[in-house]
């Protein structure tokens, strides 16, 4: 069985100008979406409110959810705890981040900038509204407690996430620089930025919640996509070294074609696995699975239509990839 004709010789590089242009446009659009529209950060990143409610008599979770949805809390997350009549309802903060008290001011002592579990005004107001929504359906509901997760926790998470992305991209490019050559490192970094931007751009576009699993997924997309690039790059190096002429366009095309079977195959197996997460993993793993699915496609496309054209544009050549011979003065003196 074959998914891709092994003898195919598609001239992928012919579309390099168009594909590069499209990629750059998509990156700009994604960046614009992320900065203008913003990401719909999840409770992990924004902080938020947790309302604990208790019913006198047992109640079905679905009824609580529908009561909340009717009251305008459609995105509330309902969890049971301590039996069948107590629920934890999570709500994201409505306020914009910037309005939160500046926690990062240099001199502010930690104790005064932090958020404790308390009856903060926002949490209280939300708790009252949640209760109204619930009591519209069942009058035996009452709020046990409302609590709050501090926004600066989320702010730290976002910073840490950014640092992680930068660390990963820098680490990979240094490795590629050593194992291959600087052109490969640059091309890989550009592709990683491309993949991360596009994936997050889709978040901004769809307004899907961006939470911790989503961040993990974006970084996994980067990890997956780099694998794809490495396989093609490896073949590029191999063909350059073994071929006599080493015409860059031809070498790149041959590399992409001869690794295409593997690209599709690994793409399919990974998609099968993360697809299982998306379909069967429940709410908590669903977004991880979905982003990975999208990311696999973006990663494969960027290997072919973005990373390789960049490699070509940077002027990759046979000479640069020949194994470094030990500096032997004897050899150098010879013609």
């Amino acid at each position, binding site marked *: 069985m074959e998914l891709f004709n*092994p003898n195919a010789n598609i001239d992928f590089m012919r579309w390099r100008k168009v594909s590069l242009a499209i990629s750059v446009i998509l990156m700009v659009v994604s960046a614009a979406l992320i900065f203008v529209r913003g990401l719909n950060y999840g409770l992990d990143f924004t902080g938020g409110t947790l309302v604990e409610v208790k019913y006198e008599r047992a109640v079905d979770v679905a009824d609580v959810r529908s009561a909340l949805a009717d009251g305008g809390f459609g995105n509330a997350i309902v969890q049971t705890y301590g039996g069948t009549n107590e629920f934890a309802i999570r709500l994201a903060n409505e306020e914009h981040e910037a309005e939160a008290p500046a926690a990062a001011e240099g001199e502010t002592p930690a*104790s005064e900038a932090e958020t404790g579990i308390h009856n903060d005004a926002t949490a209280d107001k939300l708790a009252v509204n949640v209760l109204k929504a619930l009591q519209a359906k069942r009058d035996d509901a009452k709020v046990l407690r409302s609590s709050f997760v501090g926004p600066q926790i989320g702010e730290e998470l976002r910073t*840490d996430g950014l*640092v992680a992305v930068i660390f990963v991209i820098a680490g990979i490019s240094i490795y590629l620089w050593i194992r291959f050559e600087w052109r490969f490192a640059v091309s890989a970094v550009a592709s990683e930025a491309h993949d991360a931007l596009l994936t997050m751009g889709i978040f901004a576009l769809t307004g899907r919640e961006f939470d911790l699993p989503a961040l993990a997924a974006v970084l996994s997309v980067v990890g997956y996509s780099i694998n794809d690039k490495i396989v093609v790059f490896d073949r590029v190096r191999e063909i350059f070294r073994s071929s006599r002429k080493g015409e860059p366009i031809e070498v790149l095309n041959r590399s992409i074609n001869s690794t295409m079977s*593997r690209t599709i195959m690994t793409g399919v*197996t990974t998609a099968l696995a993360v697809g*299982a997460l998306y379909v069967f993993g429940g709410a908590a793993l669903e977004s991880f699975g979905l982003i990975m699915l999208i990311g696999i496609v973006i990663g494969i496309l960027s290997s072919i239509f973005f990373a390789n054209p960049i490699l070509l544009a940077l002027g990759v050549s046979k000479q640069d990839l020949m194994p470094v011979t030990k500096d032997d003065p004897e050899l150098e003196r010879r013609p």
Partner: protein
Amino acid sequence: MNDYPRWKHALVVLVTVLGLIYALPTLYPKQPAVQVIGNSGTVIDEATRERAMAELQKRNIPFESVELKTDALLVLFPIGSTDTQLNGAAALREGLGENYTTAPNLASTVPAWLRAIGADSMPLGLDLQGGVHFLMEVDQKSVRDTQEQRYVDDIRGLLRDRNIRNTNVSRGAQGIVVQTPNTADRDTIAAAINKDYTTDLLVVNGPLVGDQPTLLVTMRPERVRVIADNTIKQNVGTLRNRINALGVAEPIIVQQGDSRIVVELPGVQDTAEAKRILGATATLEYRAVDQSTNPQEAARTGQVPGDSRLYRDKNGNPLVLKKKVIVKGDELIDASSQAEQQTGEPAVSVTLNEAGARKMLDFTMANVGKPMAVVYIERTPEVRIVDGKEERTAKITETVINEATIRGVFSKNFQTTGLESMKVASELALLLKSGSLAAPVDIVEERVIGASLGADNIEKGINSVIIGLLAVVVFVGLYYKLFGLIADLALLMNLVLLVAILSIFQATLTLPGIAGIVLTLGMAIDANVLICERIREEIRNGATPLAAIRAGYEKAWATILDANVTHLIAAIGLITFGSGPIRGFAITLTIGIITSMFTSVTGTHSIISLIFGRSKVKALSV
């Protein structure tokens, strides 16, 4: 193919056997249980066991067994009955009364012989079994304040000892300010402080205050760091003691960063109780009573001597106490509640450490017959809205819980009486015994995961692992035929190894961890795909089957290595900077990448060399 080294075969067999043994405990499901322990002094014995069983039978709650362990009862419920477990815990709490603490728990069903060789199933994260998660912020500023105040006292003592008069030591915004009568004295004092506290304090000349030269004394940054570090370590220890008192099975209490502590209490559903014990930062201070001032008068006018302060006891009666603390809570090493021998009234018997004992001895020697008071200080975080902005402060309640005449000279051991009831005494003793927190903590994040949600999550997680694995296995088997089946075997092996290693390190299994396992399974096959594609290519180029296999493995290796190293960099990046759930995911991914390199390259090569090594092969099924 006969040249495949024998030791590699042996290694593959050894690793497989070990992997299977250490992954085996995962197949034993955790059993819902409730742990019952007695509060201070309450004995757990056969009678308690009978009572617990009777309480459960009375309410028709099915249970499997009630085991009597040292100091605890373990009530086991049928596997998969989370609701029964919760009902059981509630029934036991109600039925056994206040002298017992009940905690839902997950008991291991792994056989003893497996546990004897260190094989045990992975602990489950809160998202898979339910529980409470707290993120606590340690108030480092208050520690610095306390420490600075101690140095103020020390410097005053130093000046007294050296007979330097007319000085004033106080705390300012910049640090400790010492006002001195003249420059000569100032230099003497500076030299004296430098001599005794050279590693702790930094002394510089300050500006003139009026016509008095001053010294500005600050704590050295390295000293502040040491204090901060000790503070959080001590807090972690204290919290651990308090949680042990709660009777939670397998709690997690770890430091995160410079000033935060993560506390995870699996199985705990009653957050109020947990928070009450965790959050109440209570400490005791023993202070001398200022007898020169009439408390009623002081309360009316608000006038107290400079070295004293006005306090109130629990009935609201005023008391004037010296500012100087004789002994603080952190100098206390043990406390237990008991009935006072003569009167039978509730009492807390206290043992001090050496430093505390010496101070207490010094004080009591000079003050027999004079009154001494015990101040109970409790701190609750508070929030107010000032000008539309949140202002977070801590409400500090200081209550004099006891005022007693010093009956004799004592140092290390003594009793505190005047407590409302035996219950109050035992609670106080518990808090004191667990050590006072070195610094107040505030809960900055709190998560409660219901037990039913946890059960739901674990089911969904396991389903996605099985379905994902099956899908990949079937697809690869169909696509690469025999080589695909060998790759499938390696993939199963990879799952076993991954689970075994996670179990050996007792890594907590979380939902993101399961996602990491699934992703690993999907991507681990990549190495086999690379190898198989290479073998196909070699065959197309006219190589003989055995040469194709050899060339396939050789040529694919460089690519596999590069791909896995870069993937490893990505995973390690996630471990280093990710927190909480992301870490669990990244750790699984990292281990999975390493095990997959072994199984899909060394493992499959071993099997293939066994199959094709001894026979003449005409064609390959790839």
